[in-house]
């Protein structure tokens, strides 16, 4: 392959990072819910998809992409909280399988509701006018919007880090993931915390959907492949670890991107192989705590 110039490799790397940004954001939402509630949210891809649809809807309604970026995650988070309160909460203490299976059923309902509300064909999505077009990076042209995506992800992750490390709420989250009993004994309304965390996790999934919508076709089935990818990233990073979600997201993005360049037919396979290797060698992932999960 004579055309493997350093410029191409560099551009491919940038592409991998941009791809990784979306993966990281998706994994963060999944990891948050798992870390705090030990619930594997199989409806994660569906919430992402709902976010994409609602994002377009609110953007058309208000005429502003920025406004939709704020409203949509809030709405998706609200739906998530409803789900937690009435569907997931009754299942705590019954083992890890039940909430997992419940969210699986929930995803079916979410997908079908979007079909009913928005139609089976999906919605056309456009890049916000200010971010359209491509930029000459010196190593090649690259979509402006994807650069903005990297920036947006960084902002969200930073915000989340500040929330978890520097606020009281974050302190409760950290304590609760380590020992919910003690937290309850200390007088904290753990149920409310769980509700908010689930809402936050699904809101982030919805946000990823809004941000990803301009780059791809928006249709009710778009969350299904995303779910598998989110799991791979979360597992590699370590379920329950936010640092892990970010690092793994970027890692998987770059691995996928580089494999696509060198051996494109194996790109999709490569991330599952990566997942299998990590699970067999270091099951808790890169940053997860050993023994967190049975």
């Amino acid at each position, binding site marked *: 392959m004579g055309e493997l110039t350093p410029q191409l490799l560099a551009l491919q790397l940038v592409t991998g990072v941009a791809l990784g940004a979306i993966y990281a954001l998706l994994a963060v939402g999944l990891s948050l819910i798992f870390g705090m509630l030990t619930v594997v949210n199989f409806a994660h891809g569906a919430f992402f998809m709902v976010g994409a649809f609602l994002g377009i809807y609110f953007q058309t309604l208000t005429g502003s992409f920025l406004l939709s970026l704020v409203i949509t995650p809030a709405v998706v988070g609200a739906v998530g909280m409803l789900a937690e309160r009435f569907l997931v909460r009754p299942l705590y203490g019954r083992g890890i399988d039940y909430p997992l299976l419940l969210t699986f059923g929930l995803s079916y309902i979410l997908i079908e509701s979007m079909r009913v509300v928005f139609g089976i064909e999906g919605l056309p999505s456009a890049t916000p006018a200010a971010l359209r077009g491509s930029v000459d990076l010196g190593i090649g042209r690259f979509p402006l919007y994807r650069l903005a995506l990297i920036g947006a992800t960084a902002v969200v992750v930073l915000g989340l880090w500040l929330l978890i490390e520097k606020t009281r709420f974050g302190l409760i989250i950290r304590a609760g993931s380590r020992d919910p009993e003690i937290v309850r004994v200390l007088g904290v309304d753990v149920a409310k915390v769980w509700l908010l965390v689930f809402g936050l996790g699904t809101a982030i999934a919805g946000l990823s959907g809004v941000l990803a919508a301009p780059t791809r076709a928006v249709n009710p089935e778009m969350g299904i492949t995303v779910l598998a990818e989110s799991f791979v990233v979360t597992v590699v990073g370590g379920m329950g670890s936010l640092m892990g979600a970010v690092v793994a997201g970027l890692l998987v993005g770059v691995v996928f991107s580089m494999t696509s360049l060198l051996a494109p037919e194996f790109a*999709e396979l490569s991330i599952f192989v990566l997942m299998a290797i990590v*699970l067999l060698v270091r099951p808790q992932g890169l940053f997860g705590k050993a023994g967190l999960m049975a």
Partner: protein
Amino acid sequence: MKATGVHALMDLVARHRVVAVLAFLLVFPLLMPYEALAVNILIFGLYAVGFNLLFGYTGMLSFGHAAFLGVGSYLTGMSIVHAHLHWLLAIAVGVAAAALVGLLIGHLAIRTRGIYFSMVTLALGQIVYFAFYKAESWTGGENGLRGVTVAPFEVLGLRVDLTNPIAKYYFILGFVALALGLVSRILASPFGAVIEAIRENEKRALACGYDVARSKILVFVLSATICGLAGSLRALHLSVVPIDSLHYLQSGQAVMMCLLGGMGTFFGPFVGAAIFLYLEDVVTSLTRHWMAVVGAIFILFILFFPRGVWGSLMARWQRSATREPSSPAVEQSGPA
């Protein structure tokens, strides 16, 4: 309270569960709107029963079991299409291949536990999927393997033509009956008690001196073998092997069926498969939004009937008959 007559009957049924099940299955086609649905229920019932060996009885949730269904289907299909083997030999090849893949995947997977076990099986199952997808010249790739046809043959003087739906049903029932008998034997044996002990408390089982690792691999391989047989039969039923036999969504179906019917019961998964497929058939013809209906029903079951239809029935009958605590349903205490 119920009359003792009913209890005596239920007791009789419980003690001859395989015979009772077979009697029911012999007349089953009469209850179904068309035979192909009944055959699908047989096949997926067996698949769910095989899966349940691992899930309901040993407590290990695998998301890669479609690999065994698929390997059974493909190897039987390829034996017939490429190697022109006799159907009985082809089935044997499919089952053996599934057992072998089960050994390989099981050996790797049991090093992990809990959610990681589920994820590893998912990943390994997907790798098997990709392998078969890429091997286009053998498997047909995305188009699937076509041409799995069996010419009419003679068995004990009887001419069997598999394009006759009723003949096909009883032909497949023969194999399913043998497999169910085998599973029942396994579950009633000391080994069956060991795997349930592992489900309830692995550390304690280990402390009691059982070779947990070896038991896990053994049940994994047995489970894979049964699912492989279901796959082999499916290839003969559909005359094709679709690639998504190997996809994780197919694995997810096994879980749903066990849950609907009742994990930790012998016949529960079969009932679950029947309910799931029948419902899907009915709902699909009524509305385009079958996905929402299936999802809603699934959620209802998880919330209110975690023991599944059959499991709940069994529990209630046992409770009223013996006044003892009901059978240990799969209620593990969460780690957090």
